[in-house]
C-alpha cells in the first residue's frame, strides 16, 4: 500500500493504518471520576479495518478508554467521533453509535434468562426490527462463525466460559456493527479456553472488522494487530507495531511493563 506510514509516523496514535479512512477519532479526551482523572488528553484515531490492541497496567484507563467510545462512560472534555457521529448528550447519536459498535466484556455479560439464540437475536429484533425468522437465520449464522451452532437452544449457564464468550461475540456481531470493542475478553477464562476465543477474534480480524482490543495476549497482538497502544495513568505513552514492542520499545515504562507480562 502506498499510503502505508513508515514506522516513525506510527508512533503517533492519530496516524492510522489500513485500507479506508478514519472511523474512530478521539481528540483531547479527558475523563474524570470525581477528582480522579482516568483519561488525560487522549488523542487517537482508528482506521477502517484496523485492529488496535491496547495494553497497560491495571488502572491505566484502558477500559475507560473503550467504554467512552460507546458511551458507557461519558467523557468530560474533548471530542469522540465514531463513523461520523460525534458523541454528546444527544440520545439519538448515542444509540446510533451503539448500533454500529459491538462490545465484548471480560465477564461475558450474557443474559442468563435467555437462550443462546435469544441472546443473539434480541438486539437485531428489538433495535433493527429484523423479523424473527430473519433474525434467527442471521443469529445461527453468527453462532456458526464462532463455531458453536449446536449450542443455540441452551442457556448461557450450561456453556463453558470459552463458549459463553464466543456467544457474546456472536451477540455483538448479530447487530452487524462496523466496529468491535473487546475489554480483556480472555482474562476471565481458564487457560485451555483462551485459544478458542482468540481464534474467533483472529478470524473476525481477517474478515476486515475494525477492532479495538484491550488484552495482554501479545501473541494475538503480534498476529493480527496493526498497532499496539501502551497506556499508563490515563495517557497514551507509546504506540507502534507489535514487532516494535517486542524488539525495541523506546520508553522505560513500556519496557518495565512488558518485562512483567511477557
Amino acid at each position: 500500500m502506498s499510503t502505508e506510514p513508515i514506522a516513525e509516523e506510527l508512533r503517533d496514535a492519530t496516524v492510522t493504518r489500513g485500507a479506508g479512512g478514519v472511523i474512530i477519532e478521539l481528540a483531547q479526551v479527558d475523563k474524570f471520576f470525581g477528582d480522579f482523572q482516568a483519561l488525560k488528553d487522549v488523542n487517537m484515531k482508528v482506521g477502517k479495518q484496523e485492529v488496535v490492541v491496547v495494553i497497560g497496567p491495571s488502572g491505566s484507563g484502558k477500559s475507560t478508554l473503550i467504554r467512552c467510545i460507546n458511551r458507557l462512560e461519558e467523557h468530560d472534555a474533548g471530542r469522540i467521533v465514531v463513523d461520523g457521529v460525534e458523541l454528546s448528550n444527544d440520545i439519538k447519536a448515542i444509540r446510533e453509535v451503539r448500533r454500529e459498535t459491538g462490545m465484548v466484556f471480560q465477564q461475558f455479560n450474557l443474559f442468563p434468562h435467555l437462550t443462546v439464540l435469544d441472546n443473539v437475536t434480541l438486539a437485531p429484533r428489538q433495535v433493527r426490527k429484523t423479523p424473527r425468522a430473519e433474525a434467527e437465520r442471521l443469529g445461527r449464522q453468527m453462532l456458526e462463525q464462532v463455531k458453536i451452532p449446536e449450542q443455540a437452544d441452551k442457556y448461557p449457564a450450561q456453556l463453558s466460559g470459552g463458549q459463553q464468550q464466543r456467544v457474546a461475540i456472536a451477540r455483538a456481531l448479530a447487530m452487524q456493527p462496523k466496529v468491535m470493542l473487546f475489554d480483556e475478553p480472555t482474562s476471565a477464562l481458564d487457560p485451555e479456553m483462551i485459544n478458542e476465543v482468540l481464534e474467533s477474534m483472529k478470524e473476525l480480524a481477517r474478515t476486515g472488522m475494525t477492532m479495538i482490543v484491550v488484552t495482554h495476549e501479545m501473541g494475538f497482538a503480534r498476529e493480527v494487530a496493526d498497532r499496539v497502544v501502551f497506556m499508563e495513568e490515563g495517557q497514551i505513552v507509546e504506540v507502534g507495531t507489535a514487532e516494535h514492542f517486542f524488539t525495541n520499545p523506546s520508553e522505560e515504562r513500556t519496557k518495565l511493563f512488558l518485562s512483567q507480562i511477557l
Partner: protein
Amino acid sequence: MTAGGVTTHAGAWIRQNLFRNARDSILTVVFGALLAFLTYRALSFVLGEDWEIQRQNMRNSLVGPEISGTDLWAPVIGIWLIAAAVGVMIGALDRSQHADQPGAILDPLRPAHWRQIAYRTVARLWPVFALVVFILLLTGSTTGLLVTLAAMALAFLGRAAGVRLPLGSVRWAALATALAPIVAVLIIRFGFGIDWNDWGGFLLVAFAGAAGIALSFPLGIFLALGRRSKLPVMKGLSVAYIEFFRGVPLVVLLLIGSLVIGLFLPRSLIPSEPIRAVIIFTLFTAAYFAEVVRGGLQSLPEGQEEAAKALGLPAWRITSFIVLPQALRNVIPAIVGQSISLWKDTSLMFIIGLAEPLRLASAFTRQPEFRGQGLITLTLFFAGLIYWIVSFTMSRESQRLERKLGVGQR
C-alpha cells in the same frame, strides 16, 4: 411395570431415604410417630365435632348472607368462567412448550391422558380438592356437587380446546385468563346487579385479595423503578410514597380509608366500602412490593444493563426485556410472601364492618340455635382453614414456578 417391580422400587426408596442408618431410622420413627399422632388428633377433631353450625352456614361463609336465590348463580358462573379460561391457557401452554414433541402434549379427550391429567392435578392441588370434598360431604348438596363437576368439566374442555389452538395462542390464552376474573367480577356486580356492599364471605376476600395483588404488583414495580430514577421529582415522590405507606399500620389506613382516598379523589367520587378497602390494600402493598422489587433490581450485576446498552437497546426495552425478568425472578419468594401477607390481611376488613369470613364466623355463633355453645372454635377453624389452603397453594405454586424458571440460572 409389574406390581412386584413397583414394590421393590418403593422398598428401595424407603430404605434409601428413611432407614439408611441408625440415626435416620430413629428420626424416621420419632417424626413418623409425631406426625401420625398429630394427624390422628386433627382428624378426630374434624370428624369428631358436630359441624352443624358450619353446615347450616356454608353459603354464608362462602358468599356472605346477602347473596341468595338466583343471585347464587353469579359467583358460580364466575368460577366456571375462570375454570374454563385457566384450562384453555394450560392447554395452550402445554402445546407451545412441547411444540417439537407433539407426543408429549396431554390431550384431555384421550382416556389415557385424561387420567394422567386428573392424577397430576389432584397431586398438585390436593389441599384445594380436600377442602372441596370436605364442603361437599358436609353439606351433602347435590347442586354443589354438580357445580363442582361442571367446573372441572369446563377446565378439561378448556384444556382440550387449548391444545387444539394454533401455536402462538398462548399470549391470547394468558390474556383471556387474566380477563376472566375481571369479567367474573363484572358479571356478579353488574350482570346480576349485586351491590358491592352485599359481597361477603370468601367471595369478598377472594375479590379483595386478587384485585389487591393484581393492582399493587404493577404499582410496586413502577415505584421501584421510580425510586431508581435519575429524575429527582420522580425519585422523591416514589420514596415519599413508599415511606409513608410502610410507616402507617394497615388497620389505621383501613379505618381512615375515606380520608386517605379523599387526598386523591373528590368526595363525591369516593367509592363504597369494599372498593375503598381494595384501594387501601393496593396502596399499602404496593409500597412493600416496591421494596421487594428494588431488592431484585439491586441483585442484578451492573454488566447486564451495560451489555444491553452496548447493543443499542433503548432504556425501556432494557428494563422490560433484561432487567425486570431477572430482577423479579430473583425475588419470587418475597413476592409470594407479600401476596400471602395481603391475602391474610383481607380478614382485617372486619374492622370496617364488612362481612368477611372472621366476622361471619363470630356472627354464626350468635344465631339462636348455636348461641353460647362455644362453637366459635369450629367456625374460626373453618375460616382459618380456607385462608391456610389458599396461602399454602400459593406457596407451593411459587416453588413450582421458581423451579421452572430456574432453567439456566447462573
